[in-house]
Protein backbone atom coordinates (compact mmCIF):
# COMPACT_ATOMS: atom_id res chain seq x y z
CA UNK A 1 0.00 0.00 0.00
CA UNK A 2 2.79 2.37 0.80
CA UNK A 3 5.66 3.79 -1.12
CA UNK A 4 9.04 3.33 0.47
CA UNK A 5 12.12 5.44 0.50
CA UNK A 6 15.19 3.34 -0.12
CA UNK A 7 18.86 3.95 -0.27
CA UNK A 8 20.33 2.14 -3.20
CA UNK A 9 23.84 1.55 -1.98
CA UNK A 10 25.14 0.30 -5.27
CA UNK A 11 24.65 3.68 -6.84
CA UNK A 12 24.63 5.33 -3.43
CA UNK A 13 21.76 7.39 -4.60
CA UNK A 14 18.44 7.95 -3.00
CA UNK A 15 15.37 6.92 -4.85
CA UNK A 16 11.70 6.75 -4.18
CA UNK A 17 10.16 3.41 -4.97
CA UNK A 18 6.69 4.26 -6.10
CA UNK A 19 4.01 1.73 -5.55
CA UNK A 20 1.28 1.69 -8.21
CA UNK A 21 -1.31 1.65 -5.47
CA UNK A 22 0.09 4.80 -3.98
CA UNK A 23 -2.16 7.75 -4.50
CA UNK A 24 -1.80 11.45 -4.09
CA UNK A 25 -1.38 13.53 -1.93
CA UNK A 26 2.36 13.72 -1.40
CA UNK A 27 2.06 14.87 2.18
CA UNK A 28 -0.71 13.97 4.55
CA UNK A 29 -0.90 15.56 7.96
CA UNK A 30 -3.31 14.30 10.60
CA UNK A 31 -3.77 15.76 14.08
CA UNK A 32 -0.32 17.35 14.18
CA UNK A 33 0.55 19.14 17.40
CA UNK A 34 3.85 20.82 18.12
CA UNK A 35 5.23 22.52 21.18
CA UNK A 36 8.32 24.69 21.56
CA UNK A 37 8.97 23.94 25.21
CA UNK A 38 5.53 24.66 26.64
CA UNK A 39 4.36 26.98 23.86
CA UNK A 40 1.75 25.23 21.74
CA UNK A 41 2.79 26.29 18.23
CA UNK A 42 0.73 23.95 16.06
CA UNK A 43 -2.73 22.72 17.09
CA UNK A 44 -4.41 19.74 15.47
CA UNK A 45 -3.26 20.41 11.96
CA UNK A 46 -4.92 18.38 9.20
CA UNK A 47 -3.62 19.21 5.77
CA UNK A 48 -2.78 17.50 2.50
CA UNK A 49 -0.29 18.63 -0.07
CA UNK A 50 -1.05 17.37 -3.54
CA UNK A 51 1.42 16.19 -6.09
CA UNK A 52 2.59 18.67 -8.77
CA UNK A 53 0.67 21.49 -7.20
CA UNK A 54 1.75 24.71 -5.54
CA UNK A 55 0.32 24.91 -2.04
CA UNK A 56 0.54 28.32 -0.41
CA UNK A 57 0.47 28.72 3.33
CA UNK A 58 -0.54 32.17 4.45
CA UNK A 59 -1.21 33.83 7.78
CA UNK A 60 0.05 36.56 10.07
CA UNK A 61 3.44 36.42 11.80
CA UNK A 62 3.70 33.81 14.51
CA UNK A 63 0.76 31.77 13.21
CA UNK A 64 2.87 28.64 12.86
CA UNK A 65 3.13 28.57 9.07
CA UNK A 66 6.95 28.38 9.01
CA UNK A 67 6.95 25.87 11.83
CA UNK A 68 4.59 23.67 9.87
CA UNK A 69 6.76 23.88 6.78
CA UNK A 70 9.88 22.97 8.75
CA UNK A 71 8.08 19.98 10.23
CA UNK A 72 7.69 18.58 6.73
CA UNK A 73 11.46 18.07 6.39
CA UNK A 74 12.04 17.90 10.14
CA UNK A 75 14.26 20.96 10.11
CA UNK A 76 12.15 22.06 13.05
CA UNK A 77 14.19 19.69 15.21
CA UNK A 78 17.38 21.69 14.76
CA UNK A 79 15.99 24.02 17.42
CA UNK A 80 16.07 22.21 20.75
CA UNK A 81 13.11 21.48 23.02
CA UNK A 82 10.53 20.57 20.38
CA UNK A 83 7.76 18.07 21.12
CA UNK A 84 5.66 16.68 18.28
CA UNK A 85 2.61 14.47 18.26
CA UNK A 86 0.32 13.35 15.47
CA UNK A 87 0.93 11.99 12.03
CA UNK A 88 2.75 13.27 8.99
CA UNK A 89 3.27 10.98 6.03
CA UNK A 90 5.40 11.68 2.98
CA UNK A 91 4.40 9.48 0.06
CA UNK A 92 2.93 7.04 2.52
CA UNK A 93 5.94 6.97 4.85
CA UNK A 94 5.55 8.15 8.40
CA UNK A 95 8.23 10.80 8.70
CA UNK A 96 7.97 11.47 12.43
CA UNK A 97 8.94 7.94 13.42
CA UNK A 98 12.41 6.96 14.57
CA UNK A 99 12.73 4.65 11.59
CA UNK A 100 12.82 7.59 9.16
CA UNK A 101 16.38 8.83 8.59
CA UNK A 102 16.12 12.60 8.23
CA UNK A 103 18.91 12.64 5.62
CA UNK A 104 16.87 10.35 3.40
CA UNK A 105 13.77 12.48 3.81
CA UNK A 106 15.66 15.71 3.12
CA UNK A 107 17.25 14.30 0.00
CA UNK A 108 13.75 14.04 -1.40
CA UNK A 109 12.38 17.24 0.09
CA UNK A 110 14.36 20.38 -0.68
CA UNK A 111 14.08 23.65 1.15
CA UNK A 112 14.53 27.27 0.16
CA UNK A 113 14.98 29.74 2.98
CA UNK A 114 13.82 33.26 3.66
CA UNK A 115 17.24 34.77 3.10
CA UNK A 116 19.30 33.37 0.22
CA UNK A 117 21.95 31.19 1.83
CA UNK A 118 24.34 29.90 -0.84
CA UNK A 119 27.49 28.31 0.56
CA UNK A 120 30.66 30.41 0.40
CA UNK A 121 31.79 28.35 -2.59
CA UNK A 122 31.68 28.75 -6.33
CA UNK A 123 28.37 28.72 -8.18
CA UNK A 124 29.25 25.30 -9.59
CA UNK A 125 30.15 23.86 -6.20
CA UNK A 126 26.92 25.16 -4.71
CA UNK A 127 24.82 23.23 -7.19
CA UNK A 128 27.07 20.15 -7.14
CA UNK A 129 27.04 20.02 -3.35
CA UNK A 130 23.90 17.91 -2.94
CA UNK A 131 24.73 15.34 -5.64
CA UNK A 132 28.26 15.01 -4.23
CA UNK A 133 26.93 14.42 -0.73
CA UNK A 134 24.72 11.68 -2.12
CA UNK A 135 27.60 9.94 -3.82
CA UNK A 136 27.85 11.30 -7.36
CA UNK A 137 31.58 11.42 -8.08
CA UNK A 138 31.71 11.41 -11.87
CA UNK A 139 32.72 14.84 -13.13
CA UNK A 140 30.84 14.49 -16.41
CA UNK A 141 27.61 13.56 -14.62
CA UNK A 142 28.08 16.44 -12.18
CA UNK A 143 28.56 18.84 -15.09
CA UNK A 144 25.30 17.68 -16.60
CA UNK A 145 23.43 17.95 -13.29
CA UNK A 146 24.79 21.45 -12.67
CA UNK A 147 23.88 22.74 -16.11
CA UNK A 148 20.48 21.09 -16.04
CA UNK A 149 19.64 22.45 -12.59
CA UNK A 150 20.79 25.96 -13.46
CA UNK A 151 18.75 25.87 -16.65
CA UNK A 152 15.65 24.76 -14.76
CA UNK A 153 16.26 27.61 -12.33
CA UNK A 154 16.51 30.04 -15.29
CA UNK A 155 19.95 31.06 -14.16
CA UNK A 156 22.20 29.27 -16.65
CA UNK A 157 22.51 32.11 -19.17
CA UNK A 158 23.37 34.57 -16.44
CA UNK A 159 26.09 32.47 -14.80
CA UNK A 160 27.47 30.10 -17.45
CA UNK A 161 30.61 32.23 -17.88
CA UNK A 162 31.34 32.49 -14.19
CA UNK A 163 30.49 29.04 -12.84
CA UNK A 164 33.69 28.88 -10.85
CA UNK A 165 33.35 32.32 -9.30
CA UNK A 166 31.99 32.85 -5.81
CA UNK A 167 28.24 32.63 -5.41
CA UNK A 168 28.43 35.83 -3.38
CA UNK A 169 29.18 37.84 -6.50
CA UNK A 170 25.54 37.28 -7.54
CA UNK A 171 22.67 39.60 -6.74
CA UNK A 172 20.20 38.62 -4.00
CA UNK A 173 17.64 37.43 -6.51
CA UNK A 174 20.22 35.39 -8.42
CA UNK A 175 21.42 33.91 -5.14
CA UNK A 176 17.90 32.80 -4.31
CA UNK A 177 17.49 31.20 -7.74
CA UNK A 178 20.85 29.51 -7.17
CA UNK A 179 19.48 28.09 -3.93
CA UNK A 180 16.52 26.74 -5.88
CA UNK A 181 18.92 25.24 -8.44
CA UNK A 182 20.83 23.69 -5.53
CA UNK A 183 17.61 22.01 -4.43
CA UNK A 184 16.73 20.86 -7.93
CA UNK A 185 20.15 19.22 -8.30
CA UNK A 186 19.22 16.43 -5.89
CA UNK A 187 16.03 15.77 -7.88
CA UNK A 188 13.56 16.28 -5.06
CA UNK A 189 9.87 15.31 -5.07
CA UNK A 190 8.95 18.39 -3.07
CA UNK A 191 10.47 21.81 -2.52
CA UNK A 192 9.51 23.69 0.61
CA UNK A 193 9.87 27.46 0.33
CA UNK A 194 9.88 29.59 3.44
CA UNK A 195 9.02 33.15 2.34
CA UNK A 196 11.54 32.85 -0.50
CA UNK A 197 10.99 36.35 -1.86
CA UNK A 198 10.63 38.37 1.33
CA UNK A 199 14.24 39.58 1.08
CA UNK A 200 14.05 40.36 -2.64
CA UNK A 201 13.14 43.37 -4.76
CA UNK A 202 10.02 43.26 -6.98
CA UNK A 203 11.90 42.33 -10.17
CA UNK A 204 13.74 39.46 -8.49
CA UNK A 205 10.48 38.39 -6.85
CA UNK A 206 8.84 38.27 -10.25
CA UNK A 207 11.65 36.08 -11.60
CA UNK A 208 11.39 33.65 -8.68
CA UNK A 209 7.62 33.44 -9.20
CA UNK A 210 8.17 32.73 -12.89
CA UNK A 211 10.58 30.03 -11.87
CA UNK A 212 8.08 28.46 -9.49
CA UNK A 213 5.53 28.37 -12.28
CA UNK A 214 8.00 26.73 -14.65
CA UNK A 215 9.11 23.96 -12.30
CA UNK A 216 5.75 23.03 -10.83
CA UNK A 217 5.17 20.44 -13.51
CA UNK A 218 8.13 18.48 -12.23
CA UNK A 219 8.04 19.08 -8.53
CA UNK A 220 5.53 19.63 -5.77
CA UNK A 221 5.88 22.97 -4.02
CA UNK A 222 4.75 24.19 -0.62
CA UNK A 223 5.35 27.88 -0.12
CA UNK A 224 4.95 29.98 2.99
CA UNK A 225 4.29 33.60 2.16
CA UNK A 226 3.07 36.70 3.91
CA UNK A 227 2.26 38.19 0.55
CA UNK A 228 -1.34 37.39 -0.37
CA UNK A 229 -1.00 38.62 -3.93
CA UNK A 230 1.85 36.19 -4.34
CA UNK A 231 -0.24 33.33 -2.98
CA UNK A 232 -3.08 34.17 -5.36
CA UNK A 233 -0.69 34.54 -8.31
CA UNK A 234 1.24 31.32 -8.05
CA UNK A 235 -0.60 28.76 -5.95
CA UNK A 236 -3.19 26.15 -6.78
CA UNK A 237 -4.32 25.69 -3.22
CA UNK A 238 -4.03 27.92 -0.19
CA UNK A 239 -4.13 27.15 3.52
CA UNK A 240 -4.79 29.95 5.98
CA UNK A 241 -3.10 29.56 9.37
CA UNK A 242 -4.02 31.54 12.46
CA UNK A 243 -2.66 31.10 15.98
CA UNK A 244 -1.31 27.65 15.24
CA UNK A 245 -4.53 26.36 13.68
CA UNK A 246 -5.78 25.94 10.14
CA UNK A 247 -8.72 28.19 9.61
CA UNK A 248 -9.40 27.26 6.03
CA UNK A 249 -7.85 25.39 3.15
CA UNK A 250 -9.25 25.40 -0.35
CA UNK A 251 -8.54 26.00 -4.05
CA UNK A 252 -6.78 29.34 -4.19
CA UNK A 253 -9.39 30.90 -6.47
CA UNK A 254 -12.17 29.77 -4.14
CA UNK A 255 -10.42 30.85 -0.96
CA UNK A 256 -9.70 34.30 -2.26
CA UNK A 257 -13.09 34.91 -3.90
CA UNK A 258 -15.50 33.21 -1.54
CA UNK A 259 -13.87 32.38 1.80
CA UNK A 260 -16.16 30.46 4.12
CA UNK A 261 -14.66 31.70 7.35
CA UNK A 262 -15.05 35.29 8.44
CA UNK A 263 -11.45 35.45 9.75
CA UNK A 264 -10.13 34.42 6.33
CA UNK A 265 -12.19 37.12 4.73
CA UNK A 266 -10.85 39.68 7.20
CA UNK A 267 -7.25 38.60 6.66
CA UNK A 268 -7.23 38.48 2.88
CA UNK A 269 -8.93 41.85 2.76
CA UNK A 270 -6.28 43.31 5.02
CA UNK A 271 -8.48 43.96 8.03
CA UNK A 272 -5.80 42.46 10.32
CA UNK A 273 -2.38 40.79 10.17
Amino acid at each position, binding site marked *: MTTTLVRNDKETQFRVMKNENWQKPVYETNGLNLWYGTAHALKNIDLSINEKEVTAIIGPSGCGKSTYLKTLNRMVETVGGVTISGNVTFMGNNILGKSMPVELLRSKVG*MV*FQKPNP*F*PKSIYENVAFGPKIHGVRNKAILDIIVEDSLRKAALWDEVKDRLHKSAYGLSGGQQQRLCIARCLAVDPEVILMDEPTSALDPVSTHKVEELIRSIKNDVTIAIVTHNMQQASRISDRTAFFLNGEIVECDRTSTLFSTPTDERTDDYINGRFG
Partner: protein
Amino acid sequence: MSSIQPSEKARTRDIIAAAKKKERFGKLVPYLLLAVTSLTVLATFGIVYTLLKETFTFFTHINISDFVFGTEWAPFSNADPSFGVLPLLIGTLKIALIAILIGVPAGLACAIFLSEYASPKVKKIVKPIIELLAGIPTIVYGFFALTFVTPLLQTIIPQLKLFNALSAGIVVGIMILPMIVSLSEDALSSVPASFRDGSYALGSTKFETAIRVVVPAATSGIAASIILATSRAIGETMIVSLAAGSTPAFNLDLTGSIQTMTSYIVQVATGDAGYGTTIYYSIYAVGFMLFLFTFLMNRAALYIKTKFREEY
Protein backbone atom coordinates in the same frame (compact mmCIF):
# COMPACT_ATOMS: atom_id res chain seq x y z
CA MET B 1 10.19 86.96 39.76
CA SER B 2 12.06 85.34 42.60
CA SER B 3 15.52 86.65 43.32
CA ILE B 4 18.43 84.20 43.58
CA GLN B 5 19.54 83.63 47.17
CA PRO B 6 23.25 84.21 48.01
CA SER B 7 23.66 80.60 49.15
CA GLU B 8 22.21 79.39 45.86
CA LYS B 9 24.61 81.65 43.99
CA ALA B 10 27.51 80.05 45.79
CA ARG B 11 26.25 76.62 44.92
CA THR B 12 25.99 77.50 41.26
CA ARG B 13 29.53 78.81 41.39
CA ASP B 14 30.73 75.53 42.89
CA ILE B 15 28.96 73.50 40.25
CA ILE B 16 30.53 75.58 37.48
CA ALA B 17 33.96 75.27 39.07
CA ALA B 18 33.59 71.49 39.32
CA ALA B 19 32.52 71.29 35.70
CA LYS B 20 35.52 73.35 34.64
CA LYS B 21 37.83 71.09 36.62
CA LYS B 22 36.32 68.09 34.93
CA GLU B 23 36.80 69.72 31.56
CA ARG B 24 40.47 70.41 32.26
CA PHE B 25 41.01 66.78 33.23
CA GLY B 26 39.10 65.65 30.14
CA LYS B 27 41.46 67.64 27.95
CA LEU B 28 44.42 66.02 29.65
CA VAL B 29 43.26 62.42 29.14
CA PRO B 30 44.33 62.01 25.49
CA TYR B 31 47.83 63.25 26.33
CA LEU B 32 48.18 60.81 29.23
CA LEU B 33 47.04 57.93 27.06
CA LEU B 34 49.34 59.03 24.25
CA ALA B 35 52.27 59.05 26.67
CA VAL B 36 51.61 55.48 27.74
CA THR B 37 51.12 54.39 24.12
CA SER B 38 54.41 56.01 23.11
CA LEU B 39 56.13 54.10 25.87
CA THR B 40 54.95 50.81 24.34
CA VAL B 41 56.05 51.83 20.87
CA LEU B 42 59.36 53.02 22.26
CA ALA B 43 59.93 49.70 24.04
CA THR B 44 59.36 47.86 20.76
CA PHE B 45 61.82 50.05 18.91
CA GLY B 46 64.30 49.75 21.77
CA ILE B 47 64.25 45.98 21.67
CA VAL B 48 64.56 45.82 17.89
CA TYR B 49 67.37 48.40 17.98
CA THR B 50 69.41 46.49 20.56
CA LEU B 51 68.84 43.26 18.70
CA LEU B 52 69.97 44.78 15.40
CA LYS B 53 72.97 46.61 16.86
CA GLU B 54 74.45 43.58 18.58
CA THR B 55 73.64 41.37 15.61
CA PHE B 56 75.67 43.71 13.38
CA THR B 57 78.55 43.53 15.84
CA PHE B 58 78.35 39.75 15.67
CA PHE B 59 78.67 39.85 11.91
CA THR B 60 81.90 41.87 12.23
CA HIS B 61 83.30 38.79 14.05
CA ILE B 62 81.73 36.08 11.93
CA ASN B 63 81.02 36.07 8.22
CA ILE B 64 77.26 36.22 7.59
CA SER B 65 77.25 33.38 5.07
CA ASP B 66 79.23 31.17 7.50
CA PHE B 67 76.51 31.83 10.02
CA VAL B 68 73.49 31.29 7.77
CA PHE B 69 74.83 28.30 5.81
CA GLY B 70 77.22 26.72 8.32
CA THR B 71 76.40 23.19 9.40
CA GLU B 72 78.47 23.13 12.57
CA TRP B 73 77.57 24.95 15.73
CA ALA B 74 80.44 24.72 18.22
CA PRO B 75 80.78 28.12 19.89
CA PHE B 76 82.46 26.74 23.01
CA SER B 77 85.28 24.99 21.20
CA ASN B 78 88.53 26.65 22.32
CA ALA B 79 90.59 25.44 19.39
CA ASP B 80 88.21 26.06 16.52
CA PRO B 81 84.88 27.71 17.41
CA SER B 82 82.29 27.64 14.63
CA PHE B 83 79.03 29.47 14.31
CA GLY B 84 76.97 27.70 11.64
CA VAL B 85 73.36 28.19 12.67
CA LEU B 86 71.77 25.36 10.66
CA PRO B 87 71.97 22.76 13.47
CA LEU B 88 70.03 25.11 15.76
CA LEU B 89 67.57 25.87 12.99
CA ILE B 90 67.01 22.17 12.35
CA GLY B 91 66.56 21.60 16.08
CA THR B 92 63.87 24.29 16.17
CA LEU B 93 62.17 22.94 13.06
CA LYS B 94 62.10 19.39 14.48
CA ILE B 95 60.31 20.62 17.57
CA ALA B 96 57.90 22.79 15.58
CA LEU B 97 57.12 20.00 13.13
CA ILE B 98 56.38 17.40 15.81
CA ALA B 99 54.33 19.96 17.71
CA ILE B 100 52.25 20.76 14.62
CA LEU B 101 51.73 17.09 13.81
CA ILE B 102 50.40 16.56 17.33
CA GLY B 103 48.69 19.88 18.00
CA VAL B 104 46.91 20.63 14.73
CA PRO B 105 44.89 17.44 14.19
CA ALA B 106 44.01 17.14 17.88
CA GLY B 107 43.23 20.84 18.13
CA LEU B 108 40.99 20.82 15.06
CA ALA B 109 39.16 17.69 16.19
CA CYS B 110 38.58 19.35 19.53
CA ALA B 111 37.38 22.59 17.95
CA ILE B 112 34.99 20.78 15.61
CA PHE B 113 33.59 18.75 18.49
CA LEU B 114 33.04 21.83 20.64
CA SER B 115 31.54 23.95 17.89
CA GLU B 116 29.42 21.38 16.05
CA TYR B 117 28.63 18.52 18.38
CA ALA B 118 28.95 19.45 22.04
CA SER B 119 25.82 20.50 23.90
CA PRO B 120 26.08 23.87 25.64
CA LYS B 121 26.43 21.97 28.92
CA VAL B 122 29.38 19.90 27.73
CA LYS B 123 30.95 22.98 26.15
CA LYS B 124 30.67 24.80 29.45
CA ILE B 125 32.66 22.07 31.17
CA VAL B 126 35.22 21.22 28.47
CA LYS B 127 36.22 24.72 27.38
CA PRO B 128 37.52 25.90 30.77
CA ILE B 129 39.51 22.67 31.11
CA ILE B 130 41.20 23.30 27.77
CA GLU B 131 41.78 26.91 28.70
CA LEU B 132 43.36 25.68 31.94
CA LEU B 133 45.92 23.96 29.72
CA ALA B 134 46.85 27.41 28.40
CA GLY B 135 47.45 28.62 31.93
CA ILE B 136 50.01 25.97 32.88
CA PRO B 137 53.51 27.50 33.11
CA THR B 138 55.79 26.14 30.41
CA ILE B 139 58.35 25.06 33.02
CA VAL B 140 55.74 22.59 34.29
CA TYR B 141 55.28 21.29 30.76
CA GLY B 142 59.07 20.99 30.62
CA PHE B 143 59.47 18.66 33.53
CA PHE B 144 56.28 16.85 32.50
CA ALA B 145 58.09 16.06 29.25
CA LEU B 146 61.30 15.09 31.03
CA THR B 147 59.92 13.03 33.90
CA PHE B 148 56.73 11.59 32.45
CA VAL B 149 56.61 11.59 28.64
CA THR B 150 60.23 10.54 28.06
CA PRO B 151 60.11 7.48 30.41
CA LEU B 152 56.75 6.54 28.89
CA LEU B 153 58.13 6.76 25.36
CA GLN B 154 61.22 4.81 26.38
CA THR B 155 59.04 1.78 27.07
CA ILE B 156 58.03 1.91 23.38
CA ILE B 157 61.27 3.20 21.85
CA PRO B 158 64.12 1.75 23.95
CA GLN B 159 66.88 3.68 22.16
CA LEU B 160 65.29 7.01 23.13
CA LYS B 161 67.77 9.21 24.98
CA LEU B 162 66.92 11.01 28.22
CA PHE B 163 67.06 14.32 26.36
CA ASN B 164 65.37 14.05 22.98
CA ALA B 165 63.46 16.01 20.37
CA LEU B 166 60.50 13.65 20.32
CA SER B 167 59.06 14.06 23.78
CA ALA B 168 59.81 17.78 23.86
CA GLY B 169 58.04 18.16 20.50
CA ILE B 170 55.03 16.18 21.67
CA VAL B 171 54.68 18.28 24.80
CA VAL B 172 55.06 21.53 22.83
CA GLY B 173 52.25 20.14 20.68
CA ILE B 174 50.10 19.76 23.78
CA MET B 175 51.05 23.26 24.85
CA ILE B 176 49.86 24.86 21.59
CA LEU B 177 46.61 22.84 21.63
CA PRO B 178 44.51 25.36 23.57
CA MET B 179 45.53 28.13 21.20
CA ILE B 180 44.42 26.13 18.15
CA VAL B 181 41.23 24.94 19.85
CA SER B 182 40.22 28.35 21.06
CA LEU B 183 40.93 30.30 17.85
CA SER B 184 39.58 27.60 15.53
CA GLU B 185 36.49 27.16 17.64
CA ASP B 186 35.82 30.88 17.41
CA ALA B 187 36.20 30.70 13.64
CA LEU B 188 33.86 27.70 13.37
CA SER B 189 31.24 29.14 15.69
CA SER B 190 31.07 32.37 13.75
CA VAL B 191 30.06 30.54 10.56
CA PRO B 192 26.41 31.57 10.06
CA ALA B 193 23.78 28.99 11.02
CA SER B 194 22.11 29.53 7.64
CA PHE B 195 24.97 27.60 5.96
CA ARG B 196 24.37 24.64 8.24
CA ASP B 197 20.62 24.81 7.58
CA GLY B 198 21.26 24.88 3.84
CA SER B 199 23.43 21.82 4.12
CA TYR B 200 21.08 19.84 6.40
CA ALA B 201 18.16 20.69 4.12
CA LEU B 202 19.99 18.96 1.25
CA GLY B 203 20.19 15.77 3.27
CA SER B 204 23.73 16.05 4.64
CA THR B 205 24.63 14.49 7.94
CA LYS B 206 26.12 16.50 10.75
CA PHE B 207 29.60 15.28 9.89
CA GLU B 208 29.28 16.09 6.18
CA THR B 209 28.02 19.54 7.10
CA ALA B 210 30.92 20.12 9.48
CA ILE B 211 33.60 18.94 7.07
CA ARG B 212 32.24 20.22 3.77
CA VAL B 213 30.54 23.45 4.75
CA VAL B 214 31.55 24.75 8.16
CA VAL B 215 35.29 24.01 8.10
CA PRO B 216 35.82 25.42 4.57
CA ALA B 217 33.88 28.54 5.53
CA ALA B 218 36.17 28.98 8.55
CA THR B 219 39.41 28.27 6.67
CA SER B 220 40.99 31.67 7.15
CA GLY B 221 40.49 31.64 10.92
CA ILE B 222 41.70 28.06 11.22
CA ALA B 223 44.80 28.73 9.09
CA ALA B 224 45.61 31.80 11.14
CA SER B 225 45.33 29.79 14.35
CA ILE B 226 47.71 27.17 12.98
CA ILE B 227 50.28 29.75 11.95
CA LEU B 228 50.13 31.54 15.27
CA ALA B 229 50.51 28.22 17.07
CA THR B 230 53.50 27.36 14.88
CA SER B 231 55.10 30.65 15.70
CA ARG B 232 54.53 29.88 19.37
CA ALA B 233 56.14 26.45 18.96
CA ILE B 234 59.17 28.00 17.25
CA GLY B 235 59.64 30.46 20.07
CA GLU B 236 59.04 27.94 22.86
CA THR B 237 61.98 27.89 25.26
CA MET B 238 61.39 26.25 28.61
CA ILE B 239 60.14 22.89 27.43
CA VAL B 240 63.00 22.41 24.98
CA SER B 241 65.60 23.65 27.45
CA LEU B 242 64.47 21.08 29.98
CA ALA B 243 63.62 18.10 27.83
CA ALA B 244 65.39 18.35 24.47
CA GLY B 245 68.98 18.67 25.66
CA SER B 246 71.73 21.05 24.52
CA THR B 247 73.61 19.23 21.79
CA PRO B 248 73.44 20.96 18.42
CA ALA B 249 72.68 18.22 15.91
CA PHE B 250 72.73 18.54 12.14
CA ASN B 251 70.69 15.44 11.39
CA LEU B 252 67.11 14.23 11.19
CA ASP B 253 67.20 11.96 14.25
CA LEU B 254 64.36 12.54 16.70
CA THR B 255 65.48 10.23 19.49
CA GLY B 256 68.64 12.08 20.43
CA SER B 257 69.51 15.32 22.18
CA ILE B 258 69.22 18.49 20.12
CA GLN B 259 69.57 22.21 20.63
CA THR B 260 67.13 24.82 19.41
CA MET B 261 67.73 28.50 18.85
CA THR B 262 65.93 29.33 22.06
CA SER B 263 67.67 26.78 24.23
CA TYR B 264 71.06 27.98 22.97
CA ILE B 265 70.22 31.50 24.12
CA VAL B 266 69.25 30.13 27.53
CA GLN B 267 72.48 28.16 27.74
CA VAL B 268 74.60 31.24 27.05
CA ALA B 269 72.55 33.63 29.12
CA THR B 270 72.69 31.37 32.18
CA GLY B 271 76.38 30.51 31.60
CA ASP B 272 79.40 32.74 32.05
CA ALA B 273 80.07 34.09 28.57
CA GLY B 274 81.87 37.41 29.03
CA TYR B 275 80.51 40.67 27.66
CA GLY B 276 81.99 41.51 24.29
CA THR B 277 82.93 37.97 23.33
CA THR B 278 81.75 36.42 20.06
CA ILE B 279 79.59 34.01 22.06
CA TYR B 280 77.94 36.96 23.77
CA TYR B 281 77.09 38.58 20.44
CA SER B 282 76.00 35.27 18.94
CA ILE B 283 72.87 35.13 21.12
CA TYR B 284 71.75 38.38 19.54
CA ALA B 285 72.23 36.99 16.06
CA VAL B 286 70.29 33.84 16.98
CA GLY B 287 67.69 35.95 18.76
CA PHE B 288 67.32 38.14 15.71
CA MET B 289 66.82 35.09 13.51
CA LEU B 290 64.15 33.82 15.90
CA PHE B 291 62.49 37.22 15.89
CA LEU B 292 62.48 37.24 12.10
CA PHE B 293 60.78 33.82 12.03
CA THR B 294 58.03 34.63 14.51
CA PHE B 295 57.53 38.08 13.01
CA LEU B 296 57.06 36.66 9.52
CA MET B 297 54.73 33.98 10.88
CA ASN B 298 52.56 36.53 12.62
CA ARG B 299 52.44 38.70 9.52
CA ALA B 300 51.47 35.64 7.49
CA ALA B 301 48.66 34.88 9.91
CA LEU B 302 47.38 38.42 9.62
CA TYR B 303 47.66 38.33 5.84
CA ILE B 304 45.74 35.06 5.59
CA LYS B 305 43.07 36.32 7.94
CA THR B 306 42.36 39.40 5.85
CA LYS B 307 43.16 38.13 2.37
CA PHE B 308 41.48 34.75 2.40
CA ARG B 309 38.38 35.82 4.26
CA GLU B 310 35.42 33.98 2.79
CA GLU B 311 33.07 36.75 1.78
CA TYR B 312 29.55 36.18 2.92
